C-alpha cells in the first residue's frame, strides 16, 4: 500500500512539511479544522530573519545564531539553532521562488531592524509578512493537491494518537461535518500551533489554536518542554475579543516607547538601555513595562511618510480601524499581551517526540527559541521546522509500520473525547486561574495558590479533552514553580536573578496521572 504521512495543522509549518514530502513523491494527508487562510500563520506581521547581509552591515549566519541563542537565554539546543540560522537564507530564496513579494529596493531585498538583533536582518512584506507567505504557500500546496500527492482534509479535528509499543502508528480524526471518527495509519507530524486557548481572549492569536491538541498529546504520554516560557509581546492593545498586536516593526522602523510625566514623554527604554533600548528583546521590554507600572505609549509620530506609505501602511490602517486613532499623529497606549509560546511539545533535532513516529513542528513544538523568542524567528521556525520534520521522515520511511485498517484496531480513545457543553464553564474557570497565575511577574506563593485552585477542579466523568486541559494547566504551573530563577520570559520576583544550575530546558511528562518535572 502507498505510504502516507499524516499532518495535523495546515498553517505554514504543516504546509511546508506537506510540500517537502510531496516533492519526494510521498503521499500526505493534511488535516485541519479550517482552511489554511484561517491559520494563525496569517497573523504574523513583522518579518522573517535571515543573515543575507543585504544592508552592508557584515552580517553572517554566526551572528544570527548568537543573537538567537542570547535572546533565548542560552537554553535552546545549539545544534538546532545552528541549523535554523543556516537554513534561513535558502528559505527566503525558496519563498521568493514561489512568488513572495519581499520588500525590495533597486532589485535587492531590504531588511529591517528587529528586537534583540544587532544587524538589520528581517525580510518583510509591509507588516503582513505572515499573510503574504501563507498565501504563496497555499498556492504552491495546491499544485500537489492537484497531482494527488497532498490530500486535504479540511473541517477535520484531532481526536488522539494511536500508539503501540511507544511507536506512533497513526492518528484518530473527527470529521466536523459528518460527525464521524476515522483512524489513519502512518507517521504523524503535529503542526497545531500555540496554546492560545489556555488563555482565551488574552492573546494575540486565533481562537482555533485551543491548546487541546498539546493537552491531549500530553495526556497520551508525549513529553512537553519549557511551558513556563510564555512570551508577552510588549506592544499589544485590547480590542473587544482579544489582544491585538502592534508589530515590532513599528519600533524597528523608528517607533519609541514612553510614559508621560506631566505631559512630558519619558523614553524609559532609551534612558535605561541606550539608543537601541526600544529594540531590546521582547522579554526585557515587557518586564520593564511591568516594573515601571505606568501607562505606556508607543510613539510613532516621528516616522516619515515614506515609512508609513511603503512599509507600514497596513499597520497604520489597522490601528485606525480598531482604535480610531492615527498613529502618525497620536500616541498609542500599549501593554504587554500573550503572543507566543516558546514551550510545547518536546522534540529532538529531527523534530521527533519521545514517541517514535510522532513529530511536531511550528509553534506547538519547543524547538528554537529557548526562554524567549526573537521577533522574525517564528515564521522562520515554522517553515524550517516543517521542512526538517518532513526530511527526517523521508530519511527513515522504512521504520514505520503501516496497518491497513486501523479502524479495526481497538483503542482507549472511544469514551467521551471532546469538551461537553457542561464543561465549558469549568474550562473558563480553569483558564481564568491559569491566566491569573502565569502573569509577567510570578512568585512561588501565587503559583502554588494557582496550582491548588486547579487541583480543586473536579474531573469525575470528565471528557478526555477536559482532563487533558486540566493536566496541561497544572503542568504549565508546575514548570513555573520548578524554575526557581528568572530567565527570559520567566520572571520570578522571589528569585530575580538567573541561576546557572537552571541553564537547561525543563521537561515535563505525565506518568500514572502524575506530573513529573525533569
Amino acid at each position, binding site marked *: 500500500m502507498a505510504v502516507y504521512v499524516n499532518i495535523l495543522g495546515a498553517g505554514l509549518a504543516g504546509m511546508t512539511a506537506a510540500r517537502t514530502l510531496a516533492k519526494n513523491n510521498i503521499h500526505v494527508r493534511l488535516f485541519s479544522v479550517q*482552511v489554511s487562510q*484561517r491559520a494563525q500563520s496569517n497573523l504574523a506581521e513583522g518579518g522573517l530573519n535571515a543573515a543575507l547581509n543585504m544592508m552592508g552591515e557584515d552580517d553572517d549566519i554566526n551572528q544570527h545564531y548568537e543573537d538567537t541563542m542570547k535572546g533565548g537565554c542560552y537554553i535552546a539546543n545549539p545544534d538546532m539553532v545552528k541549523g535554523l540560522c543556516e537554513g534561513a537564507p535558502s528559505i527566503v530564496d525558496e519563498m521568493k521562488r514561489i512568488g513572495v*513579494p519581499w520588500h525590495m529596493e533597486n532589485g535587492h531585498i531590504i531588511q529591517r531592524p528587529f528586537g534583540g538583533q544587532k544587524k538589520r536582518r528581517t525580510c518583510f512584506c509591509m507588516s503582513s509578512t505572515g499573510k503574504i507567505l501563507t498565501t504563496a504557500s497555499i*498556492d504552491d500546496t495546491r499544485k500537489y493537491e492537484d497531482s494527488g500527492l497532498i490530500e486535504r482534509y479540511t473541517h477535520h479535528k484531532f481526536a488522539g494518537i494511536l500508539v503501540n509499543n511507544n511507536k506512533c502508528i497513526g492518528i484518530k480524526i473527527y470529521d466536523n461535518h459528518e460527525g464521524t471518527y476515522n483512524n489513519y495509519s502512518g507517521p504523524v507530524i503535529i503542526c497545531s500551533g500555540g496554546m492560545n486557548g489556555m488563555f482565551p481572549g488574552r492573546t494575540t492569536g486565533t481562537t482555533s489554536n485551543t491548546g487541546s491538541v498539546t493537552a491531549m498529546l500530553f495526556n497520551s504520554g508525549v513529553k512537553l518542554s519549557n511551558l513556563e516560557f510564555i512570551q508577552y509581546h510588549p506592544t499589544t492593545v485590547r480590542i473587544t475579543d482579544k489582544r491585538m498586536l502592534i508589530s515590532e516593526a513599528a519600533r524597528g522602523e523608528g517607533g519609541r516607547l514612553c510614559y508621560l510625566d506631566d505631559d512630558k514623554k519619558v523614553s524609559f527604554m532609551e534612558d535605561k538601555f541606550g539608543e537601541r533600548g526600544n529594540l531590546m528583546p521582547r522579554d526585557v521590554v515587557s518586564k520593564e513595562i511591568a516594573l515601571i507600572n505606568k501607562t505606556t505609549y508607543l510613539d510613532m509620530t516621528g516616522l516619515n511618510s515614506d515609512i508609513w506609505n511603503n512599509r507600514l501602511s497596513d499597520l497604520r490602517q489597522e490601528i485606525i480601524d480598531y482604535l480610531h486613532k492615527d498613529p502618525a499623529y497620536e500616541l498609542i497606549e500599549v501593554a504587554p499581551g500573550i503572543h507566543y509560546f516558546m514551550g510545547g511539545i518536546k522534540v529532538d533535532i529531527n523534530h521527533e517526540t519521545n514517541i517514535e513516529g510522532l513529530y511536531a513542528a511550528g509553534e506547538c513544538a519547543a524547538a528554537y527559541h529557548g526562554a524567549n523568542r526573537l521577533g522574525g524567528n517564528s515564521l522562520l521556525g515554522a517553515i524550517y521546522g516543517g521542512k526538517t520534520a518532513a526530511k527526517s521522515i523521508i530519511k527513515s520511511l522504512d521504520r514505520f509500520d503501516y496497518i491497513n485498517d486501523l479502524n479495526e484496531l481497538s483503542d482507549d480513545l472511544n469514551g467521551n473525547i471532546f469538551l461537553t457543553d457542561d464543561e465549558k464553564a469549568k474550562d473558563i474557570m480553569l483558564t481564568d486561574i491559569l491566566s491569573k497565575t502565569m502573569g509577567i511577574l510570578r512568585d512561588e506563593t501565587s503559583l502554588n495558590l494557582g496550582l491548588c485552585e486547579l487541583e480543586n477542579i473536579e474531573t469525575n466523568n470528565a471528557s478526555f479533552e477536559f482532563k487533558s486541559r486540566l493536566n496541561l494547566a497544572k503542568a504549565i504551573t508546575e514548570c513555573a514553580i520548578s524554575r526557581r530563577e528568572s530567565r527570559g520570559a520567566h520572571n520570578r520576583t522571589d528569585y530575580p536573578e538567573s541561576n546557572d544550575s537552571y541553564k537547561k530546558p525543563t521537561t515535563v511528562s505525565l506518568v500514572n496521572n502524575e506530573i513529573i518535572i525533569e
Partner: protein
Amino acid sequence: MKKILHIKRQLNSNSESYYENFVYESDNENATVATALLTTPVIWEHSCLQKKCGACAMVINGKPALACNTRLADMDCEIINIEPLRKFPVIQDLRVDRQALMDKLKELKVWLESDSINGNENISYEASRCLECGLCLEVCPNYYMDGKFGGMAAMTPLARIIDKSSKDQHKELKKNYKKGVYNSCGKSLACRDICPAKIDIDKLLVKSNAAAIWNRWNKE
C-alpha cells in the same frame, strides 16, 4: 446597549431551519457581532477575530459581512438578523461549506508551475491579501456555486499568478482567466465595496486583463 440577535439556525444540512433569539447586553461600545455570538451556543466559524482570516463571513441585517468587523453600536435597530451565507450549503447554524472556493482555485490551476519572475511587487502584494472569505461571491450577481465563474475570490489569487508566472504558463493561464473570470464578470463590481480587506480590485483587474486578455504580460 441591548441587542436581540435573531439567528437563523439549522441542526444539520438536511434539517429545517428555524430562528432563535438571543439577548446580548453590554456597555462595551466596541462590541462586535462576533463578541455577541461568542456568548451563544450557535455554531459559526471564527479564528482571528480581527478581520485577517475571513472565517466569520455571514449575512448581518441582510448585508454580507465579517462578524468581527461589524460593530453592534453602528446598527440603529435593536433586533439584528443573522443568517448564514446564502451561496454555500449550510452545515450547521451559521457554518457553511465554502469548499467550492477552494475547488475553483484548483480547477483554474492557481499556482506557479515554475519559479516566480520578479513581476510587479505591488500587484503581487495586493493580490496576496485576499482572505477567501466569500463575501464578494455572496454579493456577485454572476456567481453561483458550481458555475464556470469564480468571481473575485478567484480573480484575486489569479492576479498574483498572472503577475509572477513565466512564459511557459501563459497559454493555460490565459485560457483559465478567460473561462473563470473575464467571460462571466458582469462588471457590477459589487465585490469592490464589500471586500473586508479593501483589496484594490480595479488595479488587479486592469493588470490581469492587460496580461491575460490583451497579451501584455510582464516581460522578463
